[in-house]
């Protein structure tokens, strides 16, 4: 028992020793462990990877092994993110390990964050091949979508496996597409069939749609076929659906048609070409007939056959000085514009001097000149008419006024204003006012047209004015009617009118020139006449003034006033009329005092003052002053008031007396007869002329009383009384009596007048 116990004790002692000697499990507390590992890591003695929860460490080797295992499990492809989750290791560590694996293991690839190994690649290449043989074609883009792998990777994979596990071929134009031979052959056959069958130009897209050949393969097939010369035609336009396939049979027939047509007709119509399907006929013609000299017109291309014909016609026209319409000579498809172009070209070529009218009519210069000649006479006639009738002057004056009306609106251009003044002042005597004005306006137009845009409205106004200013000698219609008389011309539609409008400005110009010339001539004549008349008037006034001075002072004033009112006013009126005309101011036929004032305000200043003085002087009572004022006034109108010529006095007086006598011999009016007789007697007695009104008769008689024989004086005074009675009486009987008495005495009075010399008292008679 005891022995057993002791054995047991021994056993226990042994157990105890065993227990003591058994290796100690080196337990470290958790954070100690962490620290130790950190330390080790720091000192680079240990290389481990933390798990994401921080509870475990993994050595890189282990990680790599685990990754490989996972890759295997997942069928050869695994996402790194998934790996990180599965292995509970940080993604960065996983990707590091993954790149490590990729580097060391040729069969594993890291693609787009995924590990892919060889088995997987083999699998997908197999799949791709299946797909390819099923569908006939495979697109890398589709594969990308399907496998969610990058295109380049798939591309390179497929390219590498091409011919090994993937049986197909790559599209030459798009390396991303692969076909099976069968597929290509099928499509090629379809395409070839379609292209051979087509006889009309067809859109590629239509062909593709019809035979359901995919577009992308088409181009390579087409190239292939073209290489093999199996395409009977050409593809024009861009590669792709927009291109057009033109079968050679079609283009051949097209070209044949074009050639034939051209050969037959000598021209080509663009419309016809576009109907045949040429998109750009003009260029086509250029290309197709590169060697031919074709004129390309608007709607047709013309060959030498037709151009020669036209040339010949043009030359003939130029040579014969006639005209011709080439339109009937041309094929009917030619438009008039084409004909015109053709004519102009021909004109250039032949260097002939012709004009083209109504698009198609060639008229030689000679013919035109003939026409113009025919009108020249008419133009001159019309101009003469216009000038003679005064319309021309009126027109000139009106246009002047109009331009004046316009001027204030545009006086901003001082230069122009100045020019106008120059035109008015400097050339006051010239008859070319109208012309000057018009030239100015055209100049202005050019000048302003060049510079200013804002003046457009003004321009329009101006041109309107100038249109208005144009004096119409010929209307287009007039000329047209005249030309239309020629049947050859009038046959051609539109020609007459066009010719007329072509000739009209020319003729008008001629007419205007003629009118201006005429007007100038008449004006200078007028001026001379006016000058003469004014001088005569002035002389008369002087002479008559002398006569007045013979009389008593009392009567003198009245007589002078009368003189001024009659002859003086005449003179002034003439001067004003002239001035108005020269300065292109409208003036009434009868110039009243108001009219004068109005004219004065409108006159330019250099003319204004002398005329104003004259205007004032005529209202005064001094003949001397009046004459002095008249001199500068006339000068302002470019006239000269001649010095009073004593020699002329006598003829004036005699003339005056003769005139009086003549008047007397014809009159039956007792009052006038008395008046005239008195005047004659006065002339006879004083050897001066007297201009008086009836009112002055009495006073003049009184003045004559002592100078004439007494019986004559008494006869005259009696007669005068009778006249007074006749004029002043209200009683019809008295009037009648006086009238009879006067009629009876009339002859006596006349006799007195006729024998005026005898009536004078011999002692008083003057030399």
């Amino acid at each position: 028992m005891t022995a057993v116990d002791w054995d047991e004790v021994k056993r226990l002692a042994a157990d105890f020793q065993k227990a003591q000697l058994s290796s100690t499990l080196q337990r470290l507390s958790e954070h100690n462990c962490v620290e130790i590992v950190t330390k080790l890591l720091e000192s680079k003695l240990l290389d481990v990877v933390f798990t994401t929860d921080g509870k475990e460490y993994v050595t890189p080797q282990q990680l790599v092994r685990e990754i490989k295992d996972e890759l295997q499990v997942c069928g050869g492809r695994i996402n790194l993110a998934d790996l990180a989750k599965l292995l509970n290791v940080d993604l960065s560590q996983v990707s590091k390990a993954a790149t490590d694996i990729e580097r060391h293991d040729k069969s594993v690839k890291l693609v787009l964050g995924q590990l892919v190994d060889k088995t997987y690649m083999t699998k997908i290449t197999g799949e791709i091949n299946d797909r390819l043989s099923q569908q006939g074609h495979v697109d890398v883009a589709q594969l990308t979508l399907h496998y969610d792998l990058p295109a380049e990777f798939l591309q390179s994979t497929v390219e590498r496996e091409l011919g090994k596990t993937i049986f197909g071929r790559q599209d030459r134009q798009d390396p991303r597409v692969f076909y099976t031979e069968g597929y290509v052959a099928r499509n090629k056959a379809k395409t070839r069939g379609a292209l051979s069958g087509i006889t009309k130009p067809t859109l590629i897209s239509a062909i593709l749609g019809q035979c359901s050949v995919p577009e992308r393969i088409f181009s390579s097939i087409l190239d292939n076929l073209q290489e093999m010369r199996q395409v009977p035609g050409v593809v024009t336009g861009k590669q792709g659906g927009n291109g057009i396939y033109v079968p050679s049979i079609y283009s051949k027939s097209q070209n044949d048609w074009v050639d034939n047509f051209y050969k037959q007709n000598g021209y080509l119509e663009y419309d016809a070409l576009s109907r045949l399907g040429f998109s750009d006929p003009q260029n086509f013609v250029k290309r197709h007939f590169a060697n031919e000299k074709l004129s390309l017109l608007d709607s047709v291309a013309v060959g030498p056959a037709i151009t020669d014909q036209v040339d010949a016609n043009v030359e003939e026209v130029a040579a014969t000085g006639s005209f011709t319409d080439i339109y009937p000579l041309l094929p009917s498809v030619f438009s008039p514009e084409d004909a015109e172009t053709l004519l102009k070209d021909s004109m250039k070529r032949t260097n002939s001097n012709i004009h083209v009218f109504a698009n198609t009519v060639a008229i030689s210069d000679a013919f035109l000149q003939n026409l113009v000649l025919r009108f020249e006479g008419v133009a001159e006639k019309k101009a003469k008419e216009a000038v003679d009738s005064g319309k021309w002057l009126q027109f000139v004056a009106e246009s002047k006024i109009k331009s004046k009306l316009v001027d204030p609106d545009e006086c901003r251009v001082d230069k122009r204003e100045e020019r106008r003044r120059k035109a008015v002042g400097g050339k006051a005597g010239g008859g070319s006012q109208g012309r000057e004005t018009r030239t100015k306006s055209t100049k202005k137009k050019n000048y302003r047209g060049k510079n200013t845009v804002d003046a457009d409205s003004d321009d329009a106004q101006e041109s309107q004015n100038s249109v208005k200013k144009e004096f119409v000698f010929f209307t287009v219609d007039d000329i047209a009617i005249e030309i239309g008389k020629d049947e050859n011309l009038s046959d051609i539609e539109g020609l007459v009118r066009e010719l007329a409008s072509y000739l009209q400005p020319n003729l008008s110009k001629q007419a205007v020139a003629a009118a201006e010339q005429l007007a100038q001539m008449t004006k200078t004549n007028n001026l001379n006449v006016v000058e003469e008349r004014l001088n005569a008037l002035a002389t008369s006034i002087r002479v008559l003034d002398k006569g007045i001075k013979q009389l008593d002072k009392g009567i003198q004033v009245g007589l002078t006033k009368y003189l001024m009112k009659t002859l003086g006013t005449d003179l002034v009126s003439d001067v004003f009329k002239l001035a108005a005309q020269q300065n292109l101011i409208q003036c009434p036929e009868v110039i009243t005092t108001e009219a004068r004032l109005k004219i004065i305000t409108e006159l330019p200043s250099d003319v204004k003052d002398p005329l104003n003085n004259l205007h004032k002087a005529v209202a005064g009572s001094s003949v001397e002053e009046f004459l002095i004022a008249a001199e500068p006034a006339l000068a302002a109108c470019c006239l000269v008031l001649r010095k009073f010529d004593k020699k002329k006095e006598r003829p004036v007086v005699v003339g005056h007396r003769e005139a009086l006598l003549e008047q007397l011999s014809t009159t039956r009016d007792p009052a006038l007869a008395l008046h005239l007789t008195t005047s004659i007697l006065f002339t006879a007695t004083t050897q001066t002329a007297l201009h008086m009104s009836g009112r002055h008769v009495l006073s003049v008689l009184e003045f004559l009383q002592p100078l004439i024989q007494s019986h004559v004086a008494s006869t005259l005074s009696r007669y005068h009384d009778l006249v007074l009675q006749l004029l002043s009486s209200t009683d019809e009987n008295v009037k009648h009596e006086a009238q009879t008495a006067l009629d009876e005495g009339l002859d006596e009075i006349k006799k007195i007048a006729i024998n005026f010399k005898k009536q004078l008292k011999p002692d008083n008679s003057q030399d």
Partner: protein
Amino acid sequence: MRQMRLFSSRDSGLVSELRLVIMVDESTRKTLSSIPLLSTKAGPRDKELWVNRLKEEYQALIKYVQNNKGSDNDWFRLESNKEGTRWFGKCWYMHNLLKYEFDVEFDIPVTYPTTAPEIALPELDGKTAKMYRGGKICLTDHFKPLWARNVPKFGIAHAMALGLGPWLAVEIPDLIEKGVISYKDRGDE
């Protein structure tokens, strides 16, 4: 230091094991509770009963050592003579990553288990005040009453755990600090 606190506690009136256990810190409590308690009250002189007692001692020690190893706290080697009256071996203490090892020996007193064994570290004889002549460690006042209260439940394993262990923990760092003992490289350990 925790053990120090335990032994220097003024609360000397601990009456129950439970109370004691509560008083010591968590790890010590755990250590103690995991050592099987003994039941045979017998000394070396009690012939047959001593064998029983010895068996229990061994079982407790085995358990204690296993526990220590399990918690990475192996700190001694013990063996005894055939009769189990004399024990000797080694104990060690880790300080600053250095292992300080000492020989340990003690006899089972005749009056055992009433009297606790007097554990001695002969190497340290005369080096510290907390030691009797012959290298017997000077156990605290608390140990003896604690032991007395727990006769016969406490055995050698308990004496080691409650006596030598705390003593080492307190004294060795102090001695090392004083330079009384120095590290001896014993590669074989």
